[in-house]
């Protein structure tokens, strides 16, 4: 089996939003895809198996130690020309795969295409535009802000040439991959919001914000070193934090994360 696009789907522990994620994939106007679901634990695996039953395009792989390892395993044997990640909490716009596929057709030199995204809450209500995806992309700007995502369509050849997913920075595996891709191929951007990223009290961005900041910084330092910029520049991390107190709100949480 070799669909044009392999969609890798990390499935989180409770898999609470997985039906919406899978539903949005099944509703794609671009039909030539297959999906590999990467469950975080045995419960997520059982839930995923139950949900994909009856759709031969979807496969559930065994539980692995980390999301990065799982995504690496999912992509290492795939024979599709194109790869994409759909987080099991998130939702694709019906035209997402078609639009990014068309963009890569227009740019045969590009190794990756990405779109804008919006944030939604647990109930699917819009929270606003993704905070970084409107920033202009360049390989240098990517060192400072991760604007390339979360929806990305990658050529398998570019993905493999860049070294694929690694487990060096497990809480910043996507950012690390984008940095390496930006050093080896062209990246193009579609200024349309084609993806809904869900932010809720149990989202990885909320539960592991500190680890994500640390791993993103370490991936940045590694990229600066690869590019030889550490001869002329020192790397530092500036962190601002603030508390917000609001009346009549049921949940607090973490704000200001990409």
């Amino acid at each position, binding site marked *: 089996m070799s669909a044009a696009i392999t969609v890798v789907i990390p499935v989180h522990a409770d898999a609470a939003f997985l039906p919406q994620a899978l539903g949005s994939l099944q509703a794609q106007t671009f039909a030539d895809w297959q999906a590999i679901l990467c469950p975080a634990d045995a419960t997520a695996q059982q839930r995923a198996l139950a949900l994909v039953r009856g759709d031969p395009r979807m496969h559930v792989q065994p539980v692995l130690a980390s999301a990065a390892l799982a995504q690496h395993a999912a992509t290492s044997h795939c024979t599709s020309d194109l790869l994409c990640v759909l987080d099991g909490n998130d939702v694709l716009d019906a035209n997402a795969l078609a639009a990014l596929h068309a963009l890569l057709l227009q740019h045969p030199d590009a190794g990756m295409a990405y779109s804008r995204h919006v944030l939604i809450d647990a109930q699917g209500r819009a929270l606003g535009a993704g905070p970084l995806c409107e920033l202009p992309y360049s390989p240098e700007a990517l*060192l*400072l*802000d991760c604007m390339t995502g979360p929806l990305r369509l990658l050529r398998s050849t570019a993905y493999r040439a860049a070294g694929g997913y690694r487990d060096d920075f497990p809480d910043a595996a996507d950012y690390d991959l984008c940095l390496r891709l930006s050093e080896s191929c062209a990246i193009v951007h579609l200024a349309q919001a084609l993806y809904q990223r869900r932010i809720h009290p149990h989202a990885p961005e909320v539960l592991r*914000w*500190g680890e994500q*900041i*640390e791993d*993103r*910084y370490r991936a*940045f330092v590694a990229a*600066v070193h690869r590019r030889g*910029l550490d*001869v*002329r*520049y*020192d*790397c*530092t*991390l*500036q*962190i*601002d*934090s*603030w*508390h*917000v*107190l*609001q*009346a*009549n*709100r*049921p*949940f*607090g*949480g*973490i*704000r*200001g*994360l990409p």
Partner: protein
Amino acid sequence: MHSPLISIAVPIYNTARYLPAALDSLLAQDYPHWEGLLWDDGSSDGSGRIAAAYAARDARFRVLGEGCNRGNPAALAAAFAQARGGFLGVLDSDDILEPAALSSMHAFLRAHPQLGMAYSQYVEINENGALLGPGTRCNTPYSARQLLVHFMTYQFRLIRTEAYRAIGGVDADADDAADYDLCLRLSETCSIGHLPQPLYRYRIRHDSLSCSQRLRQIRATFAASERALQRRGMAASHALSLGIRARHVLKPKPGVEPQA
């Protein structure tokens, strides 16, 4: 009337470069009735010897410690447990007090007997002691509620010992937010006043905190605020959120031409 004793805790951990300036600033106070509780928290850079030399020179200094590193909150709690004064303050071992710090704060608390704690303004200095500018934390007006979201009761703080003991003192488990946690708990039991005079020089150090330490401090600060929300019975009606912005920065190395 005899002036009361003021106990100043100086938690020390590997600050040999800055410690003499800190202790000299205590010696230079125009208020003579103080004791310096020099808690050496297991320093390995000679800070302990410097503290001992100051104690040999002036009996108002007492060198304390257990020869191991217990962390700042535990060091502060242990130092204050030995305090004999009616007022308590903290001088970080890399910072500096202005000569009138103790006299001004004591006079302010004497003029306002309803206050359990008072705090001043501060200025920021660099590693070489050069003035960087006024500290901005204290610009936000104090209220017990505003303290939940903004730590404006910064240095220099002077606390009545009975107010400190009434809340159980420094929480040695408050991790890297022990001073904020202490102020939050004080704000729930007593009045706090502000003396808008710069009486403290806070040193900005490039090696102060690693990324992990800074994140731990942010977590501890937010956790202290969440605990306060619970204690105040506001958790059912209010939500506290933590805002975070992390910036990757490339700084040209000194003496090296940036890339064209």
